């Protein structure tokens, strides 16, 4: 199979790339918990530091990470505005009073600004941290493997995790094939005079029919052939199947997880010791 030239995976050799996907999935959960536990400026500083170190370790170029953030700029702005204007003004230091409505005061307060800034930092760290841990450094196939292993206890209560994993990896396997098919069929129809670029919405949608039908036909045919081939090799469900690429839990994986646990610990300690010293951010 070609080296997965789709999605956001960034080919590089780093400690984070080599980590076990299970570690990365758990680490991501820990990281998310840590971002939500942050309650004061110092813990946010620690979070930023941690994220920066993580991105340096992963060898993913800053440009790509910033690009992944671009998709959520709208959400970030919205969150900042909501926090800026709707933070409770009771007992807060007013900077710019807007007015009163329904017996409540509205305006920009020092606390509001602080909360908005922290919310932005929280979202930025959340997006870049999780994308470094998963999308950039883990191939979709590794991710499926890791997830299915982590969820395998669910098989005890009759949830067919292995079947879902198989379906998932087959789907992933066929994405490049599908892209190539689409390209080929599009070229063939272009050669027969279909114009995909001009015309209104309806005309464009109509131009898709000569692509979608052959694409469906060939995909169904592929699926059928694959099913036959799998049955010929005696595939019948996942029970008792062994793996070709076994996941190996290494010492470095344990260390990595410990580091993330340490992050949570540090955030909690900072929250407790600095209670009342620096302004708390809910």
């Amino acid at each position: 199979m070609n080296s997965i030239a789709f999605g956001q995976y960034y080919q590089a050799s780093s400690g984070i790339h080599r980590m076990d996907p299970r570690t990365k999935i758990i680490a991501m959960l820990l990281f998310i918990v840590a971002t939500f536990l942050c309650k004061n400026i110092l813990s946010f500083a620690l979070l930023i530091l941690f994220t920066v170190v993580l991105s340096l370790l992963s060898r993913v170029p800053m440009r790509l990470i910033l690009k992944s953030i671009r998709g959520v700029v709208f959400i970030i702005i919205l969150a900042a505005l909501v926090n800026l204007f709707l933070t409770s003004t009771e007992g807060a230091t007013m900077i710019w009073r807007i007015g009163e409505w329904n017996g409540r005061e509205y305006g920009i307060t020092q606390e509001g600004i602080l909360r908005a800034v922290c919310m932005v930092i929280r979202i930025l760290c959340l997006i870049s941290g999780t994308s470094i841990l998963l999308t950039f450094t883990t191939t979709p196939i590794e991710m499926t493997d890791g997830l299915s292993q982590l969820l395998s206890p669910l098989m005890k209560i009759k949830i067919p995790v292995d079947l879902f994993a198989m379906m998932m990896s087959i789907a992933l396997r066929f994405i490049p094939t599908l892209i190539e098919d689409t390209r080929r069929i599009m070229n063939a129809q272009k050669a027969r005079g279909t114009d995909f670029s001009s015309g209104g919405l309806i005309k464009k949608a109509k131009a898709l029919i000569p692509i979608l039908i052959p694409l469906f036909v060939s995909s169904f045919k592929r699926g059928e052939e694959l099913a036959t081939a799998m049955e010929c090799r005696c595939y019948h469900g996942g029970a008792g199947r062994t793996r070709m690429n076994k996941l190996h839990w290494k010492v470095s994986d344990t260390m990595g997880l410990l580091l993330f646990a340490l992050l949570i610990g540090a955030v909690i300690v900072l929250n407790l010791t600095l209670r009342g010293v620096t302004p708390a951010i809910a």
Partner: protein
Amino acid sequence: MAELSLNRVSYLYNPKTESEVRALTDVTLSFPERKITGIIGHTGSGKSTLVELLNGLLRPTSGEVTLDGENVDGDWKKKYEKLLRYDREHGQKTNRHSLKKRAKIAAAEMRRTICFRVGLVMQYPEYQLFDETVEKDIGFGPGKMGLSDEDIRERVLESIRIVGLDESILAKSPFDLSGGQKRRVAIAGVLAMHPEVLVLDEPAAGLDPQGRMDIFDCIRRYRDELNATVVLVSHSMEDMASFCDHVVVMNRGQVAMQGTREEIFSRPDELVRMNLDVPQITRLMMMLREAGLQVPYGIYTVEDAIRAVSTLFDATGQAGGDADE
């Protein structure tokens, strides 16, 4: 007139990225009119890339593909430069604005018509079939050309005859046909547009010998009836030998040899160096010659060989009956 030529064309896939691939380097070619030109080359030598450049599906990274002197990819800037140059050479005063306008109109016209003028049959064309009936599918291209319903019907009937299928097939669904029939329906869909240049990428791939012969017959019939130029990509030296007037040999994205088939097949050593070969029957004749028999040069088909060997037997006074085996 349909003079299709490439002038110093290079093509890169994914230029300026890590996955950059140099598919064609400095290719200069022209396809003789009303002749069948075969393109042959080892796998990955850039044949399909070359073919997709011919009707503007791909744009050359550098260089130019022209049909009757006009750039096929419909880039108005190139046309504009050409008009400017023409004015300068003829000492005419140039109105840049009107030249730009003229260039844009010409380029748009070229983009609209190029697919109809250079008809491309891609590798495994049966994947492009989609409509409810064979008739509608073949009529798809002519419909895009804006022809009237009667004209479309006429062209569908004509092309189904050229590809040698029965009219009763027109009402069937294209998905109910056999592989060889699907292939011919797909080719008919391109023929129905009456391209001046017909380009086919491996039209006979995956067919049995009879299926191959049928396909080649219908290509030849089209050439003869419409005086078209044909460009044909094939892996098979045998097909090239029995079918093409001219041969272009590609190697690693470059034109290694081009000329009439006699010129090409008289240089077997160079062909072998490019992982290609002369047709088996030609090789056999060469071996006979080396063994001291007086067989003529330039034999590429089994029929010619039989004839040559029979005359040889007749001349030496032996029974000619064995030659057919």
